[in-house]
């Protein structure tokens, strides 16, 4: 009986078809698996050399040391100057990107007519599409000498955290604006209409109804922006300099974690030395910081999607 059924299936090509369907499915799943493999590859490639680095430099000295001089004859591997440099530039960038991006998002979601939206959105997309090296060029050769120098005068270093931070801020405005605008557009019209019906003004509806209702998405946009600022490389390599200063003065030159990785990989340190392994240790720290922020952002985005979609 079973043999008979199999024979019938064979004539119809059912078995063959089922096999090829399963093969296709397996192939697609393998492609999807590559993305998991990528993450695994990142973790493995970072950890291998990081472990060997920490064996040489010591984990306590690395995480709490305040002197970063990996290329000196007596090298010192205290990562704090790189961390504070990164945080200083990122804080300046967020101080620009958060208000400007949020303002643009509220304007697009609540105020702009469809015609204005069609004109403004491509501007933000274009801003998001400009390669970071172009922002670096602009920060070093225009923003520092033409805009900041006249204001701050001599105390401003030619390479400084302020110029890199402000220009980076404009680079991440589109990130804040588009994620926040998505969240605000997902707020149901009924909430707005209810508030208008009670006599609220447009300003009150935007700030006291739509803003809180979209808060989780807006927070996600800030966290994503912070993650991008911490991980950004070319602007700081070009415009913030290569001096690992432990300073909060934005007029001075600072070295960020990404700057160190790029400059050292470019050939400052011979392969196999502790200084070379430091690339991977700093890379691990960078990956852990951005990974934590990305997971927080993904969670917040999911929250508003669950509520409104």
């Amino acid at each position, binding site marked *: 009986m079973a043999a008979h059924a199999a024979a019938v299936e064979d004539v119809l090509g059912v078995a063959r078809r089922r096999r090829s369907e399963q093969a296709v*499915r397996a192939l697609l799943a393998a492609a999807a698996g590559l993305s998991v493999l990528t*993450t695994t590859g990142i973790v493995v490639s970072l950890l291998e050399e990081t472990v060997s680095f920490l064996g040489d430099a010591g984990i306590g000295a690395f995480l709490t040391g305040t002197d970063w001089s990996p290329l000196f004859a007596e090298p010192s591997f205290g990562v704090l100057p790189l961390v504070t440099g990164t945080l200083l530039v990122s804080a300046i960038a967020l101080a620009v990107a958060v208000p400007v991006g949020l303002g643009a998002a509220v304007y697009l979601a609540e105020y702009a007519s469809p015609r204005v939206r069609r004109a403004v959105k491509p501007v933000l997309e274009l*801003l998001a599409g400009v390669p970071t*090296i172009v922002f670096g*060029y602009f920060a070093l050769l225009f923003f520092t000498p033409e805009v900041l120098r006249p204001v701050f005068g001599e105390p401003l270093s030619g390479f400084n955290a302020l110029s890199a931070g402000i220009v980076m801020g*404009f680079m991440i405005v589109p990130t804040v604006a588009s994620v926040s605008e998505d969240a605000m557009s997902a707020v149901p019209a009924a909430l707005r209409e209810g508030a208008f019906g009670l006599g609220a003004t447009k300003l009150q509806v935007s700030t006291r109804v739509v803003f809180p209702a979209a808060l989780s998405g807006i927070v996600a946009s800030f966290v994503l922006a912070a993650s991008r600022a911490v991980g950004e490389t*070319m602007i700081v390599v070009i415009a913030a300099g290569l001096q690992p200063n432990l300073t909060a003065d934005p007029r001075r030159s600072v070295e960020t974690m990404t700057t160190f990785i*790029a400059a050292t990989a470019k050939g400052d340190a011979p392969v196999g030395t502790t200084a070379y392994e430091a690339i991977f240790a700093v890379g691990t720290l*960078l990956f852990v910081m*951005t990974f934590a922020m990305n997971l927080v952002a993904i969670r917040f985005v999911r929250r508003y999607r669950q509520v409104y979609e």
Partner: protein
Amino acid sequence: MSAGDRVRGTLFRALLLACVVLSAAMLLTLLVDVALDGAGRLSASFLTSAPSFRPDVAGIWPALMGTLWLIGICAVFVVPVGVATAVYLEEYADGSKWWNRLIEVNVQNLAAVPSIVYGILGLAFIVRGPLSLGPVVMAGALTLGLLVLPVVVIAAREAIRAVPPSIREGSLAVGATQWQTIWRQVLPAAVPGIATGVILALSRAIGETAPLIVIGAASFVAFAPSGPSSVFTALPVQVFEWISRPQQEFHELAAAGILVLMAVLVAMNGAAIWLRTRYESRW
């Protein structure tokens, strides 16, 4: 509405508009500054010459060809893998299974991993280590491919999701298998969205500098690459090299290089916008 409300409303609106105007003004200033700095250096010989220590004869040909090689190979890698991942996640994956949720969160996270970290991955796994390709075109293209893969996956998923279920149900109802339905109905309908996503992903890859520096793209290459196993430089790497020099002549070359880079990007984004408006379908 009181007079005070009206004033506050107008002020708020003006403040919001100022945010948009400020961003646009910044973008405009940047474009004008680069154009003014670089226009004088743009010429046919700039496009067709090799870089040189003498700024007046230096050109961008090896970098331009390097970028085209990178993007070509990157596309060959990233389109099939990215679309296959998107099809799996949208059409096959059972979202209640933990491994499918893992893949999904993983893709979202990879989209936000700093590009320089991909450079470290490429250095450890592709240039050295298991693949050991050396700092060649193929290694650069694969590194950039992994970097923009999540962008393609996310765009392709959206395009596939936009194809209404009725198309699938109709196909399945007349006896097509699931794969036949996907291959002959869903994917053709999703092509414009997928193509737009691919172009945007590739334009991101074109502008990436940091991962190429980390994997060791050469900063001085006198010849265009002859194949996937040639050493190479790319437009943004060449621009960076010129910015790093102190002399103003090289800064002008950098600006001219940026203009070439932006021209390539504008052409690609123009194609993306054209595709989006030309083939955008509404069900």
